[in-house]
């Protein structure tokens, strides 16, 4: 068989060969496209990795500041009960998150977007007697911290999804490169060799046929020769008596019938 590799089980015909050729062409185009997509995604993911790194460092700083501002609140208020009071008086979420989709090389990535609802100040009066400013400032610091967290969450989600997609794309690229293209090529080779074989058979057959024909023709020639010879000899016997006839038939076309108009 042509090539040791696997091939598709097809009938080796010219039509299938055409199909296979176009399939190979398609596979190569697809391979190129996917390769490019994979590269684009890899770029995107390395960008995201960089941003995650940044966001994580930022989060570290912001959370530290936030925790410290909480310490300031405790210092100013002089007790932990303020926390309970704040927990209880928060009724509505002030800081909210909405999602939207971003398209990176045909991959939909959810992106979280944070926003604060205006005019929602559930514990604006907390710490009225003392420490109110600190409470408010602490809240702002934590709002910033949560913002960073949301950003980070958005990036992490994108990272996970992109990672998955890149894996799939790379798998496809590899599959096309290492399985589909060789297989199709093998099939084409196989079909070609089969077709060649058929050609050779055909050629051989034709040759056989022509040989036979030649042989037949040769036999026929010999026969005709023999006949001629026989005719000649009979003519010689009749030379005398037929000298006249020979004279008469000067043109030698006694075989020919006289043309009678």
């Amino acid at each position, binding site marked *: 068989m042509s090539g040791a590799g696997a091939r598709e089980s097809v009938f080796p015909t010219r039509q299938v060969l055409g199909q296979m050729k176009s399939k190979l062409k398609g596979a190569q185009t697809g391979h190129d496209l996917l390769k490019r997509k994979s590269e684009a995604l890899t770029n995107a993911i390395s960008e995201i990795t960089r941003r995650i790194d940044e966001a994580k460092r930022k989060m570290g700083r912001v959370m530290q500041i936030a925790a410290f501002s909480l310490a300031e609140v405790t210092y100013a208020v*002089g007790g932990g009960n303020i926390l309970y009071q704040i927990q*209880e*008086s928060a009724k509505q979420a002030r800081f909210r998150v909405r999602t939207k989709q971003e398209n990176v090389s045909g991959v939909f990535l959810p992106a979280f977007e944070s926003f604060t609802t205006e005019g929602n100040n559930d514990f604006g009066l907390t710490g009225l007697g003392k420490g109110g400013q600190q409470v408010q400032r602490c809240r702002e610091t934590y709002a910033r911290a949560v913002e960073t967290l949301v950003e980070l969450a958005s990036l992490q989600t994108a990272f996970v999804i992109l990672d998955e997609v890149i894996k799939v794309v790379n798998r496809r690229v590899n599959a096309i490169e290492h399985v589909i293209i060789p297989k199709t090529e093998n099939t084409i080779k196989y079909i070609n060799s089969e077709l060649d074989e058929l050609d050779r058979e055909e050629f051989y057959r034709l040759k056989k046929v022509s040989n036979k024909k030649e042989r037949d023709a040769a036999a026929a020639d010999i026969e005709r020769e023999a006949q001629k010879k026989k005719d000649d000899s009979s003519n010689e016997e009749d030379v005398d008596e037929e000298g006249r006839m020979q004279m008469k038939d000067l043109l030698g076309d006694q075989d020919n019938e006289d043309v009678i108009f």
Partner: protein
Amino acid sequence: MGAHMPRQLEDHLLTRRSYIEGIVRGYRNSLLTSQAYSNLTQCETIDDVKLQLGPAYGDFLAALPPNPSTSALANKLTEKLVSEFRYLQANATGSLAKFMEYLTYGYMIDNVALLITGTLHERDTRELLERCHPLGWFETMPVLCVATNIEELYNSVLIETPLAPYFKGSLSHQDLDELNIEIVRNTLYKNYLEDFHNWVNTNPDVRGTPTAEVMSEVLEFEADRRSINITLNSFGTELSKADRKKLYPNFGRLHPEGTLMLSRADDVEGVRIAVEGVSDYKTFFDQTGLNQGGGSAVGNMSGGAGGEGKSLEDMFYQKECEISKLAFTRQFTHAVVYAWVKLREQEIRNITWIAECIAQNQKERIGNYISVF
């Protein structure tokens, strides 16, 4: 002591009171000094802090696990304050006993406010009992947890607590439901301050003594501080000026002109003008640089510029500590108890702050504590 008292009894009473005063002065001497604080700020871990506090707090810190959280540390420190306070309270008689009771009312107000919050949000208030400040604990407090709605709570507060007079006349049970808990708390506090002020100036045992003198100053300062803070903190909230005015105590060095102006203030500048009549507060405002219109510098330790940029609240705490320190220069007065409690509270705050700075590795602001000795 009246002249009609037998000499013997008077001596006896003086001895009783001197005993307590002696104890308090002893307690005062165990307060951390600047030297001790600067040692504390050198610590690298909470364990070091614990070690440094060993001489002053000894037994109370023994039960703490290695590297305790700052809140656990603060709890232990408060425990010591409470146990010492309880000891004094057990030995106190007559007007001092009443005086010390008055001291606890402030904490009671906080506790009751906490329970009201819990009841309003239909939480199990029993869980809140352990969150209550131990100094504000009163025997009938668990009874308040029986109340399931705000009306019941209101009635039991009226019946069971010493705070009843502060509720009566200024708050109804609907108010508890509708008003913000902070307004309730500050209304109570205002009534409490007024009552306390009134008591030190009218009680026959206290009137005209150094106690009345010192305590008037302290309470007036406290009243002014609250008025100023409330005004500053209410900017940008839904608290109306009329409601705000109701929260100002009706005495103090700012009263009445200053508070009137405070009630009309729209911004920090307005507050500054309102307090200009009192040189102390004017100095505070000048030092914090608020007159340049930096509204953000009101909170404590703002600016991040290290120790030099003291905030208004820092100034107030500083002033409170100085007044308290001066109280110890007087003889035969209840005010030393108050002063000691305040200084001790500041000390706990300081230690917590230092511990927090160490725990969070934010050493650059560690010097923001207030030390007067």
